[in-house]
């Protein structure tokens, strides 16, 4: 009896389980049908730390913020030049210290209150006066003396020194009537919808489930006009393969940060379109030419031979970035020049043919011969101390690029008589050793913004570390000529003149070779073309859609001609999968039941 009862129990559980598995898929499928192409589902492969715009520092968090709060000015979708946001227009005083912004009339917060210059003044003042509000955007106000709003439509910012990047303040303007009630920035309530849900951008945050989802609704009263989609969802995926799978299965509409292999397979997938865009990062080979502290005290254990600029130039001539792009990056990159990537054409500098370090081992050899580094008996060149020149090449073991490119670098430099040993270690160890100057050569790379000021500032003497390991300099570069050009650039308000100075500064960097800019990686993205016809790219035609400087990409999302989201979710393959699942469950259940009956018969 006991036996029988248990069998029935097992059976009912099996049936319930099977029902659950089969019924489960119908729920989202039915929902998907209701969405009707008006919901844009974006896979987010990076974490969100905060929605609170004063604390949000991860790239994905700032991206969500960009959708929600309007900026004073922002880089345009066409060419990244400053475009009006909340500020309709702006002007500077003759002494270049006072900036006056005219704030747009008629813009409303999503709770109905008007957006005024006082909100902007509050936002900047809060960052200047509240130490805990400086986490995300503290740098932008460092040079601010005062920020005031004489009336609702006028914002006046006084700076301590002239600053050219005042039309590139990447600071979201928040409503004073909400945030003035938030005394403590660290309070978790500042990440909740009642606080961050009040905005004036194209989309408004309506739901936040940490580690799972951020849901945004289109702002019906957005001053540029309502978005063409109703809802924008950022869905967390911790694994890019899973995100790609979700795109193929029509569970998401948009995926970025693809690898070249993933990109190639998606290129030919039905219902999916790909976007290969010029990137905003430069990849470099750092050369330790004498790491030092701000006090000019040398640190680290870099090979002294690298202090000779002729050796660094010879190394640059011995490398072939085009081969790295073709063989290692699958062609998805652009060989480098200056440290401002080609995606920012106004400030990008490309070396002229006469100054370029073209791949030329013979020329590199000749330069090293001339500089007085003869080859020893084993073919390795000998330094002034009589020792053979041996360099360590540091790279991230986790990174495909470092693993494969390091072999090329070893053989290229070997051909000009420099022995290189690979040291592929953990990300943290690479960071630590490069910060402390304990390397000879190292693979690295940095992201840049539309305004070149920040990335140039990291190459100045002022960025050198005060104590070992605390560097904010990217390559320990410290050069009087460069510093002079940087200082001139950062206070030059004429766009043409400024661009010229920025390019000269890059030329100086290129000439001194503290690092070799290898390439600008492409940004690889893919989306469901059966659900969405187009997005706005930045810059126009060639740029990226996600993680722009601004909200243009998703704001400009255009649903495909009246089509529902993938006609409601489940592909034929999904149905086959469900059927197979049901068959398996029934088979297991049936076998178990049959066997039990048999054994019971045997024994009675």
């Amino acid at each position, binding site marked *: 009896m006991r036996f029988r009862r248990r069998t029935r129990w097992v059976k009912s559980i099996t049936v319930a389980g099977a029902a659950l598995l089969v019924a*489960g898929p119908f729920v989202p499928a039915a929902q998907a049908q209701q969405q009707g192409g008006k919901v844009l589902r974006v896979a987010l492969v990076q974490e969100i730390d905060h929605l609170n715009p004063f604390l949000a520092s991860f790239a994905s968090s700032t991206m969500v913020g960009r959708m929600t709060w309007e900026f004073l000015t922002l880089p345009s979708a066409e060419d990244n030049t400053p475009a009006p946001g909340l500020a309709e227009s702006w002007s500077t005083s003759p002494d270049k210290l006072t900036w006056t912004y005219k704030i747009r009339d008629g813009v409303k917060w999503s709770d109905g209150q008007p957006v005024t210059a006082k909100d902007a003044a509050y936002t900047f003042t809060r960052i200047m006066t509240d130490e805990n509000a400086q986490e995300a955007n*503290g740098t932008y106000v460092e040079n601010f003396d005062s920020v005031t709003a004489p009336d609702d439509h006028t914002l006046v910012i006084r700076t301590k020194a002239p600053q050219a990047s005042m039309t590139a303040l990447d600071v979201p303007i928040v409503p004073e009537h909400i945030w003035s009630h938030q005394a403590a920035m660290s309070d*978790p309530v500042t990440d909740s919808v009642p606080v961050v849900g009040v905005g004036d951008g194209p989309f408004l945050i309506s739901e936040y489930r*940490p*580690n799972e989802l951020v849901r945004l609704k289109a702002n019906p009263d957005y001053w540029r006009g309502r978005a063409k989609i109703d809802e924008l969802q950022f869905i967390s995926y911790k694994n890019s393969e*899973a995100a790609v799978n979700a795109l*193929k299965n029509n569970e998401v509409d948009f995926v970025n940060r693809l690898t070249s292999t993933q990109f190639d397979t998606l290129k030919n997938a039905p219902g999916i379109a790909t976007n290969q865009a010029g990137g905003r990062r430069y990849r470099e080979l750092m050369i330790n030419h004498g790491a030092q502290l701000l006090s000019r005290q040398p640190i680290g254990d870099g090979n002294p031979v690298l202090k000779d600029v002729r050796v660094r130039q010879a190394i640059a001539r011995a490398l072939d970035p085009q081969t790295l792009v073709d063989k290692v990056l699958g062609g998805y990159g652009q060989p480098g020049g200056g440290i401002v990537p080609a995606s920012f054409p106004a400030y990008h500098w490309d070396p002229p043919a006469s100054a370029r370090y073209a791949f030329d081992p013979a020329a590199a050899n000749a330069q090293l011969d001339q500089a007085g580094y003869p080859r020893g008996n084993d073919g390795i060149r000998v330094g002034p101390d009589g020792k053979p020149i041996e360099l360590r090449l540091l790279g991230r073991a986790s990174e495909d690029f470092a693993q494969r490119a390091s072999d090329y670098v070893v053989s290229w430099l070997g051909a000009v008589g420099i022995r290189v040993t690979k040291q592929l270690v953990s990300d943290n160890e690479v960071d630590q050793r490069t910060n402390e100057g304990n390397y000879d050569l190292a693979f690295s790379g940095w992201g840049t913004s539309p305004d070149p000021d920040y990335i140039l500032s990291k190459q100045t003497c002022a960025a050198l570390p*005060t104590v070992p390991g*605390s560097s904010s300099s990217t390559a320990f570069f410290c050069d009087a000529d460069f510093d002079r050009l940087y200082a001139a650039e950062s206070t030059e308000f004429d766009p043409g003149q400024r661009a010229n100075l920025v390019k000269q500064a890059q030329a100086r960097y290129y000439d001194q070779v503290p690092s070799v800019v290898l390439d600008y990686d492409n940004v690889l993205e893919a989306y469901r073309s059966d659900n969405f016809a187009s997005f706005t790219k930045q810059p126009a035609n060639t740029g990226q859609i996600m993680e722009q400087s601004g909200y243009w990409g998703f704001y400009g999302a255009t649903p495909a001609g009246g089509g529902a989201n993938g006609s409601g979710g489940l592909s034929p393959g999904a149905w086959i999968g469900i059927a197979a*699942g049901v068959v398996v469950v029934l088979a297991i259940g049936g076998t178990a039941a049959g066997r039990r009956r048999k054994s019971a018969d045997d024994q009675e």
Partner: protein
Amino acid sequence: MTNAVSTAAAELDEPRRGTGTARFLLGKLGGAAGSLLLVVALGFLLFRMIPGDPVTTLTRDRPTSPDQLAQLRARLGVDKPLYQQFLDYLSGLLHGDLGTSYGYNRPVSALIGERLGPTLLLVGTATVLAVALGLWLGVRAAWRRGSPFDRTQTGIALTLWSMPQFWLGLLLLIATQGAFPSGGMRSPATPPEFLPQLLDVAHHLVLPCVTLLAVIYAQYMLVMRSSLLGEMNADYLTTARAKGLREDLVRRRHAVPNALLPTVTLVFLQFGLVVSGTVTVETVFSWPGLGLLTYEALRVPDLPLLQGVFVVMAGSVIVMNLIAEVLYRVLDPRVRAQ
């Protein structure tokens, strides 16, 4: 509480079994407390050996001035001497404060609490199913040792046991062709009512749970199988059969309970590991659990978060171990007699 037990035990001279139990319990509790202390100290030192500067990692690719960096260092407390950091950490722990995460700028206990639920759901479900399946198959396999059933089941279990979870998970994801969600715990489009949410979570749970189950059930099966094989020729089974009991009852009432002991230890040890989750499966299926949090914290390195997670994980293993030892005594009179 423990004090009361010990004085009560000391006063009673006569019933020696009670004294033994109290001494046993006290000893075990003391041992557990000692282990926990070691874990706390070890957790502090271990993660400080990871190379890398949290401040540099956190500020990479975002505009920060040298002044800001110094300010951040001071706020995080990483500029203090090591012994001072350790003392701060200890005094925090005594007040039940696990510290504040560097990366998330939030209390570690809140972060862990947020992630604990999903991990318990996933790993707990998979472990319970794995125990049930493993024990059931183990008993069947041992009872008919050498049969085709035994050989195929042992073969399958061992094959699955040796598969990398990551690979198996991705394989399942691709093979099911979208019948199950590619990741996450809930779909954004599911209505907020209870039943649809429940179905949705169950639907999302299937693939990660099956992946985990497939890889871990083998250990229960093999331990149960070998343990039962040890009992197969025991005299008491002959006696039971001689009494005229059905084969099924002989197995269930006599053989299995005696063979269960080593398995109980294993099961409780595994329950202790439930909290730590499983980094690989959580990563493949974007399950918002604790394993993933650890992985992300390691990259910074987010020292307070790592320490907190380490203490919670190790603590749960210690507690489960303690329960297993006590339960063992209850289950097996032979242990009690010693």
